[in-house]
Each structure stands twice: as structure tokens, then as C-alpha cells.
């Protein structure tokens, strides 16, 4: 596919924000504006910056790039905007535009992008991580990138002990259609940082279907978000080709799911790939969507109080809100937390780029989790899980953070 020219990217972004009437509704909901309340941080600020950039009112400077990068892409503004302005998409375009005209992506994003494009590197990193964890060296890792995983074994030991005994073991009750070919898409985050949770996902899926496990490549969202659009496009093509035989593609990562479901919209002007990617995007389901649809019942009831954090890319990106709650309510005692769908401040690599801001955001989340009195906070995204692990640690053991596949 022909590379999109920069001007086209910028004009597309301008088009996306053109209906912003600057009312300021976004000021009240943006998690970043909540901790740093200057105009350029808000979605309104970003929309006007986009317009000024496209219309010659602002020059493409490092300042403007920093403002575009300072966005969680959490879509809270989009959901609350009366005109549903897609500021997140505009920011992705503006980042790409600025990367291209300021001499390309920063060395850091290029390095991460290269690693994530490379299957061998992801596996190597995964191996390194388990080594780190085993050696206890993960405590020295910056920004909680090497979380201490709280496994299902830990979880069952704690909550399925005597108090939970005597309860019936729940088994699946919906027969599978023999013809549906279900495949698993394993995200890099799950592979590198939460392999135990990923293994639980596979185990759960195997109770429902003859699972196809593929050696997939990265979904490309880190590349797309940081001005490496071409990499995103080529990774998508690789995955599309790889999953052609599957009828349904299930993922346990909110960000991968969001990227794969929306991939089609990046190929609309590519005659060769348009239809193939569209068909691919339609097959993608979040783990919880698939499980609720197939009538999955949790493997066993537990005597634990659970609360749930909505990953941005699941609740707003894919509109998946009830399914995880349904599954958790069937597993243990479920308590809704305040502002469950507010971004945790993880946002891909945002928490590494802006650790102080990210910390302020996760502190609010931690307080909301603690108020529920839940012993476990559950989520469906490895990025969020990194943040929630930090919160769990900071809470001094008041709660643990787990991926949903480890709980249900």
C-alpha cells in the first residue's frame, strides 16, 4: 500500500476535529486534565492544536509533538463529547505527521517498535522476564514493567479454601458447534509479562473449543500510537494472513482486541487488502464477549470480593462493559467501584514516559478500589494490569490485581 502522505494525515485529523465547538465538556472528564489542568492537555486543547497545525496557525515543533504525545488515547473525551469528536484518532494522526516531519520516531519508540515487531525478541523478553521474576530482580525494574504476577494458584489457595468448599464445581453447559474454528490471539503484553494469565486463557478456551493457537505477531497498536504507522500496517497484514482459516479470533488483551477490530478502518483505501482486513476485524472477540456468548460458567465459585477496572480499549474501544461483570458476579461477590471506567494512567508506554502524572492517576484508582473493600481488582488488559499491580503494591496488601482469565 502506498504510504499516506503527511498532508493527507493532517487533513484527516483536521476533518476528525472539525465539529469540535470548544464547549469544554471534555475538560471535566479527561483524566490527564484532572491532574494537570492547562488547556493544551485537554481534548479541546488538542482539537484546536490539530486545527491550528493543519491551517498554519502553529508550526510543527517539539512542543506540539509533546502535547500530542501527552494523551492516554483513553477515549473518555470521545464518549462524553456531545459531538463525539475522535480526539484519540486525531492524536494518532498528528503524532505520525509530526514524527515524519521532525525526522521520524524517537529512538526509544523505534527500539521498542523493533522489538515488538520481532517474534523472537518478544519470546526472548518473555524468557528474561520469568527469569527476573524467579530471581526476584523484578523489584529493581523501573515503572513496574516486570510485575509480580499473582497467579490463579495463589488466588485459589487464598479464596477457594475451606470457606469455598462444598460448593458445586461449575462446568460449561453450552455445547460447541463443531464447525466453529476458534483461534487465540496472544498479545505481546500477555506473552511477556503475564504468561500465567495467558495460559489460563488458553485453558479456559480449550474447555469450549478445539483451540487454534497461532504464532501471531504484535497487533501493531504501539507502533500506530507512536508514529510508526507503516509497521502497524505490515503487522496487520501478517496477522490477517495467519488467521485466515479461523472463524473467530479471541484475545484476552483489550488493546489488541481494539486494534484488531479497528484494523479494517486503516485499509479502506487499499484495494488489495481492504476486504481481507475487514473480514478479519469482524472475527475478533474479547475473551469475555466470547465466553458470555457461549454461556461459559466459571470453573469454580470463590469466596472473594471482586471489583473490576474497565480497560479503555475494551469499554470505550469495543463497548464491552457487561460481560466481564457478568462473569465476575458468577464467580464471587462483585462490587462496582467508583469511576471503574476511568483510565488507570498506564496507556501503553505513557506510564514510562510520564511516571509522575501516571502515578497521580493510579493513586485515584487505588483509592476507588480500596473504597470497595474488594480483595481482588480484576481487569482484561496487560497494560492496566501493570498499573493495577503498582496500586496493589502501594495499598500494602489490601488487594491484589489479576487478569480476568485467572479468576473465572
Amino acid at each position, binding site marked *: 500500500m502506498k504510504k499516506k502522505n503527511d498532508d493527507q494525515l493532517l487533513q484527516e485529523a483536521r476533518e476528525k476535529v472539525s465539529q469540535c465547538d470548544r464547549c*469544554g465538556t471534555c475538560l471535566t472528564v479527561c483524566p490527564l486534565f484532572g491532574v494537570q489542568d492547562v488547556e*493544551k492537555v485537554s481534548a479541546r486543547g488538542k482539537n484546536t492544536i490539530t486545527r491550528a497545525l493543519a491551517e498554519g*496557525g502553529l508550526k510543527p515543533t517539539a512542543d506540539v509533538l509533546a502535547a500530542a504525545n501527552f494523551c492516554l488515547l483513553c477515549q473518555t473525551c470521545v464518549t462524553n463529547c*456531545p459531538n463525539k469528536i475522535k480526539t484519540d484518532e486525531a492524536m494518532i494522526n498528528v503524532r505520525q505527521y509530526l514524527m515524519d516531519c521532525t525526522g521520524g520516531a524517537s529512538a526509544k519508540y523505534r527500539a521498542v517498535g523493533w522489538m515488538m515487531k520481532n517474534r523472537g525478541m518478544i519470546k526472548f523478553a518473555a524468557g528474561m522476564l520469568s527469569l527476573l521474576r524467579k530471581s526476584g530482580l523484578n523489584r529493581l525494574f523501573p515503572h513496574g514493567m516486570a510485575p509480580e504476577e499473582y497467579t490463579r494458584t495463589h488466588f485459589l489457595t487464598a479464596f477457594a479454601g475451606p470457606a469455598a468448599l462444598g460448593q458445586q464445581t461449575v462446568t460449561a453447559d453450552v455445547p460447541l458447534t463443531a464447525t466453529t474454528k476458534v483461534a487465540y490471539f496472544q498479545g505481546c503484553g500477555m506473552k511477556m509479562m503475564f504468561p500465567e494469565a495467558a495460559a489460563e486463557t488458553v485453558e479456559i478456551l480449550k474447555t469450549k473449543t478445539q483451540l487454534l493457537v497461532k504464532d501471531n505477531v504484535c497487533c501493531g497498536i504501539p507502533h500506530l500510537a507512536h508514529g510508526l504507522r507503516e509497521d502497524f500496517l505490515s503487522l496487520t497484514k501478517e496477522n490477517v494472513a495467519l488467521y485466515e482459516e479461523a472463524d473467530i479470533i479471541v484475545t484476552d488483551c483489550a488493546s489488541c482486541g481494539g486494534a484488531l477490530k479497528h484494523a479494517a478502518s486503516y485499509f479502506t483505501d487499499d484495494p488489495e487488502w481492504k476486504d481481507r482486513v475487514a473480514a478479519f476485524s469482524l472475527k475478533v472477540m474479547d475473551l469475555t464477549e466470547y465466553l458470555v456468548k457461549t454461556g461459559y460458567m466459571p470453573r469454580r465459585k470463590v469466596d472473594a470480593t471482586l471489583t473490576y477496572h474497565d480497560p479503555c480499549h475494551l469499554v470505550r474501544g469495543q463497548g464491552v462493559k457487561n460481560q466481564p461483570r457478568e462473569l465476575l458476579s458468577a464467580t464471587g461477590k462483585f462490587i462496582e467501584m467508583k469511576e471503574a471506567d476511568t483510565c488507570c494512567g498506564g496507556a501503553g508506554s505513557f506510564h514510562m514516559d510520564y511516571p509522575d502524572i501516571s502515578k497521580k492517576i493510579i493513586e485515584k484508582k487505588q483509592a476507588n478500589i480500596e473504597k470497595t473493600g474488594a480483595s481482588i481488582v480484576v481487569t482484561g488488559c496487560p497494560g492496566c494490569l501493570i498499573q493495577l499491580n503498582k496500586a496493589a503494591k502501594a495499598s500494602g496488601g489490601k488487594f491484589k490485581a489479576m487478569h480476568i482469565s485467572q479468576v473465572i
Partner: protein
Amino acid sequence: MISDEVKKKIRAVVGKENALDSDLDRFGYSYDSSFLALLPASLPDMVVRPLTTEEVSAIMVIANEHEIPVTARGAASGRTGGSVPLKGGICLSLDRMKRIIELDERNMMVTAEAGVRTIDLYNHCAAKGLFFPPDPASWKMSTIGGNVAENAGGMRAVKYGVTGDYVMGLEVVMADGTVLTTGGKAIKNVTGYDLSSLFVGSEGTLGIVTQALFKLIPMPKKRGTIQVMFRALDDGCATINAMLQENVVPAAAEIMDKTSLDAVARLRKMDLAPDIEACVVIEIDGEDQADLDSQTKRIKAVAEKCGALSFRVAKTEAESEELWAIRRTMSSAVSALAPNRIGEDISVPRSEFPEVVRRIRKISEKHKLTIAVFGHAGDGNLHPSVLCDLKDPESAERAHHAVDDIFDAALAVGGTLSGEHGIGITKQPYIVKAIGESGVKVSKALKQAFDPKGILNPGKIW
């Protein structure tokens, strides 16, 4: 331009993180929520974000000494350019001043700083059973300082009045840095001029409002929502008038014409009967369900006499929300019909509401532009929305002529330019027509007395 030396003095007052002068930050504080063009931007030279009245005062002393223009700003949610720093200088952003200083339950009054968001003030009072009624559509983001400076209204004005009706006193920093306190908690007060009222609606041209003391009323115990459909807009207006004459005062009475309704129907996937030309949504409040039921019965009788096609009483909170959502999403839904929407804010005597709408219809035909009409029929304040494409010079010209004609129509029936948005920049050309040469002359004399160097929000109103 502000010299480096003066910038240094300003930074010494508010701290360097609260005095911003990068190109990007200056751009961020160059606009508001009006339809004024974003570019070329009206850049302030510096964005200053004080935390206390003392800091505001110190900044004004510096600005006055060096004759630097100062434009106050809250959330920049204004619709007429009031907070746009037209002449550069200092953008005085008061959004860090967000303390609610005192809720005096015994006197039923609340004191808040300028940067408190309207909704936060409402909730703070509501928690104690007290009601702060002014509810501009922007109440989730707008700030109290801006509400006072623009004398913001809202949907409840028909029963409860506008922001100015609740102001008991103000703390204002004058152009030279003097801190003035007006009014107080005494309900009857004729000691000297009513200085508070001078600042209400003054759009930051006479002083910087840093604190406001508001009176409150007890929170109504019950609320109900009614939706009535009509074959003609006139029938809807007649119903509202008849209700008021029979002393059934709704807490809100909003009317929407067919163009507006179709716009919402398109977005919300509603089905509208083809003969519906107008919709009225009414909020009633009272002591208990029996009170609401009796009001509902009387409204129903009036509406039927005026030819209502349907009469729907919301049975649940959710249904009530659904009915109000139609009105609340109206601006955006109408905006989505065309590249640009020039939303106006004329206000007419209530009896003239149908007449001015008829005139707007003719204006729409004359200029071949769609003009959606919705607004606060209960108080005569309506928002005609001229749909156009400002990028197309020909459409833009027609739109501006249509706006001229709308203002003429409002004035012709005894109305005025603005009900709740202020004059700012966007309505300046019409001010003489509205208040006359003498009105402008007296206003200018006042301005001269308050701000001899003309540094407060220069270039606005006239």
C-alpha cells in the same frame, strides 16, 4: 508585548509554573466556545493563573502600572468571545481559584471563589438540601466567575431566575488592584448604590470578580417531567403562556421546532409522527407527588385546550432523563446538520415568542438557510441556529445577513440581543441598535470611572 522585566514581576507573584508564555500555551488561551474564527488567533502575551485574591490584586497593580490589557477567563465556555484576549496582554485564568469558602445553612447562602464549577457549587449545596438554581447548559464546565460576569441563565430561569437574581455580594479586584467587597448577607440593603449589580453581566470590563456570595433556596422535594407534542409551534407557546397565567409555573419549559426535532430524531433513532411540528418539554417541581399530580392535571387541561397532539408524563427517573436528553443533545444534533452553526441567543417578551419565530421562518426563507429554533419558551429566550458553511464566502455572507435580520426581528418586537450569553465580540455591531447611543454613552462613562486606563477586557461590548 510584556517586557521580560514585567514578566519576572508577574512570575514572582504567581510562581513560574502559573505564568505561561510558550507559543503553545498562549494559543490554548486564545479562544472560547463562540463561533469566532480560531485563526488568526487572539494570543495573550502571557497566561497568568493566580490562586488567591491577593495574587489577583498584585497582578492588577502590575498591569495597571504598565497598562497591560487583562482579560479574565474561567473555563472559556462562553459563547460570545467574552474571555478572548482580543488585545493581547494578560489572560487572567481564574480556574485555580476553586474553593467553596462557606455554606451558611442558617442564612441559606454560599460563598465561592470565581473558579468553582457551577455543578460543583450546585452539588455542594444540594448535599445540605439547599438549591442553587441557575443552570446554564454549560453548568458542568462553566465557572461561577463567568456565570456572574455574563449573568448566565439556563432552563430554570422561567421559575427561578438567572445568576444575577442570586447574587448577594461580590468580591471584586478593581483595575488598580483595589479589592472591593459589595453587598452582604443582609437581605434588605439600600446602603449606597447597588454595586454588586454593576458587575453582574459586565463581562470582565469593570473589575475581576474573585468571589461571589449567593442566596439559596430549599431544594424542591420532587421533580417531574412532561413532554407535549403540538401540530404548530404557536400551540406550544400558547400552552406555556396559558399555564403561567393560570399560575402553574414550571421549573423549566423548553420548546423545539420541527427542524430541531428532526435533527435529534436522526441521531437518536426516534420516530416522529409526521404531523408533529413542535415539542414542549416541561419540568415541574413541588412538595410531594400529590402536588406534582395536581400541577400535571392543570397543565394537561391547558395543553388540550391549546390543541396538544400527545401528552406524556415520565413515569421513571430514566424516562425523565430520556425526555430531557432530547433537549440537552439539541445543540450538538443541530450542529451536525451543517458545517457551521451560528447559535444566537435573542430574548423577547414572552407574548412575542410566536411572532418572533414566525419572523425567523421568513428570514430563513429569504436567505435560503435552514434556521433551527429551540429555546426557553417559558422566559422568552430563544436560540435560533443558523446553519451554514462559513468556509463558503457566499453562504457565510447570507448567514451574517440572516443574523442581522434576526437581531432586527428581536428588537422590533421589544426584545434584545442576548438573554444569557452576553455581547462579547460577536454581538458588538448591534449594541447601539439595542441600547441606543445614550445607553452606550452611559456605559462608557461607567467604564471610564472604573477603569480609566482601559486595561480590563478591552475591545468588548461596544
